């Protein structure tokens, strides 16, 4: 890729079909592999985006994800119009979860997603407003 080149991908995430949660992350992973991007970077993007995509579905009734592939990094912007996060510092703590029991019976809701997203990315920001929505921005260096 030349320095000016970038690839943009956009996904609409449905909020009412848990079985499809992760499809966007899966196609991004495939695309990155196809581009020959370092497998370690691909794994980081895949895990962080998947956690974020699942969060959108279980906590925010869906949203949209933009992925921008630059020659030296990958940006992910996850935007939803969900309830927002009341206390981000608390939400970032391992083990903090407001997920109901039905989410736990699907294998999620351990309160590990946000800290895991932070762990696997080089930069992460959360902008959120109660009743308006949440935007999570993440960057992984290649």
């Amino acid at each position, binding site marked *: 890729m030349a320095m000016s080149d970038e690839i943009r991908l956009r996904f609409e995430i449905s909020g009412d079909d*848990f*079985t*499809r*949660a*992760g499809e966007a*992350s*899966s196609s991004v*992973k495939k695309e990155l592999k196809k581009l020959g991007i370092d*497998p370690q970077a691909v*794994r980081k993007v*895949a*895990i962080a985006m*998947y*956690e974020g995509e*699942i969060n959108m579905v279980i906590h925010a009734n869906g949203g949209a994800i933009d992925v921008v592939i630059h020659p030296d990094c990958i940006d992910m912007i996850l935007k939803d119009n969900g309830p927002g996060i009341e206390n981000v510092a608390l939400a970032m703590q*391992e083990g903090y979860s407001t997920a109901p029991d039905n989410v736990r019976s*699907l*294998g*999620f*809701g*351990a*309160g*590990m*997603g946000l*800290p*895991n997203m932070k762990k696997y990315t080089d930069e992460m920001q959360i902008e959120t407003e109660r009743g308006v929505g949440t935007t999570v921005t993440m960057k992984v260096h290649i």
Partner: protein
Amino acid sequence: MTVRDIQEILHATVISGEEHTDREVHTACGSDMMSDVLAFVKDQSVLLTGLVNPQVVRTADMMDMVCIVFVRGKQPDEAIVRLAESRDIVLMNTNLRMFTACGLLYDRGLRGGNDGNE
């Protein structure tokens, strides 16, 4: 060991991905919480679980795992099987329970991987 060895040790039935059973595997993890798999697993290539939904396959896919073993005789539906096939992930099931299945594999040399205690 290979995926085929896992099938034999657990008296498991291969549901799909038969053509990938010669793959080498060194480490495994057992969990019904995909959150924990995503957060704590590093390079494990086999997932043993009692949970059956498409997110099990997606989680394994994100972690680059090669094989999923459903314990307690759990049977994935057609959509799950197709998803696993498209990701080249072997699916199998065993009637054994989680503890026993993990124990048998551990006894035969499969390890938990980078958890700091081995």
